[in-house]
């Protein structure tokens, strides 16, 4: 028995990192979870992790930028499990480069995956949520969308864009009992932050009052909260999970 019993959650980018932790945490809280990955092997890995943890759900292949593929995935979930009641837009990419050197395709790839696809996915689940008169859309943004970060003009723009869009959607859908919130992780220990050198890591930790990197499961816990009945009156908010590196 969990706080999310009976919920149908869809998590994009669930094959590794934060998305994987989110998918598992939602499942452990009782939700049926569908996790997406861009590759067959990624989807199979999600399925394995679900099976190993005794979570009801499925790993599916979806490139979130492939707008034409989204309705089929949503339709299949509806048919096999029920209407999506929790959408977690987690899938994201980076194409870091100084602005002076940033290519148009580096800009566009990040905007397409991290911003545009969040809209297309959200739009695709809205109809079912409106009919159900309930739903939770949770977008994974980033502290970088609040503070900026050199080399990440594209990423910061996309993440700040998602935050603004979330507030607009929260206003549009509030009357139908659909909440839209963001979780903004700071620096989380993942493959990406592991690649940092010692000097860069020390400099980074100096900025974090809690003096350590975050864990993916600490981000997942925030997502579980926003999906849970206890967060029913929270909408249009951003929950910062950053060890205090950005406060406001």
């Amino acid at each position, binding site marked *: 028995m969990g706080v999310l019993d009976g919920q149908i959650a869809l998590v994009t980018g669930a094959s590794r990192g934060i998305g994987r932790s989110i998918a598992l945490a939602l499942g452990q809280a009782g939700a049926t979870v569908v996790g997406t990955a861009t590759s067959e092997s990624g989807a199979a890995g999600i399925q394995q992790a679900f099976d190993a943890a005794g979570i009801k759900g499925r790993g599916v292949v979806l490139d979130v930028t492939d707008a034409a593929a989204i309705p089929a995935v949503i339709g299949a979930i509806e048919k096999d499990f029920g209407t999506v009641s929790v959408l977690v837009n987690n899938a994201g990419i980076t194409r870091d480069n100084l602005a002076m050197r940033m290519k148009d395709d580096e800009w566009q790839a990040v905007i397409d995956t991290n911003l545009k696809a969040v809209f297309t996915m959200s739009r695709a689940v809205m*109809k079912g949520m*409106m*009919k159900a008169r309930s739903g939770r859309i949770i977008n994974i943004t980033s502290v970088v969308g609040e503070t900026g970060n050199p080399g990440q003009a594209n990423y910061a723009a996309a993440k700040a864009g998602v935050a603004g869009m979330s507030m607009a959607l929260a206003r*549009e*859908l509030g*009357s*139908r009992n659909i909440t839209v919130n963001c979780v903004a992780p700071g620096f989380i220990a993942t493959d990406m932050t592991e690649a940092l050198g010692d000097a860069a890591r020390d400099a980074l930790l100096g900025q974090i009052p809690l003096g350590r990197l975050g864990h993916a499961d600490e981000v997942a816990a925030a997502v579980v909260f926003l999906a849970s009945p206890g967060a029913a009156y929270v909408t249009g908010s951003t929950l910062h999970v950053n060890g205090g590196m950005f406060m406001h």
Partner: protein
Amino acid sequence: MENIEQRVKKIVAEQLGVNEAEIKNESSFVDDLGADSLDTVELVMALEEEFECEIPDEEAEKITSVQQAIDYVTRHLASKA
């Protein structure tokens, strides 16, 4: 079997939470029946379901009154028959 007009009015009443008796053919969803923009989107969704059809966005935007809904459905059903 109820006719199209009755079925449309029933859906409008359900979706907008108004009494069926208050709904006239010339009633505008927004101006007369108190619908907001999201209500009108939901109304179209409900019509699609009731009449088992897909109403394209550009057509949906033109359905702003009870009569327009009746006309659309009538035309659609006629073309399907």
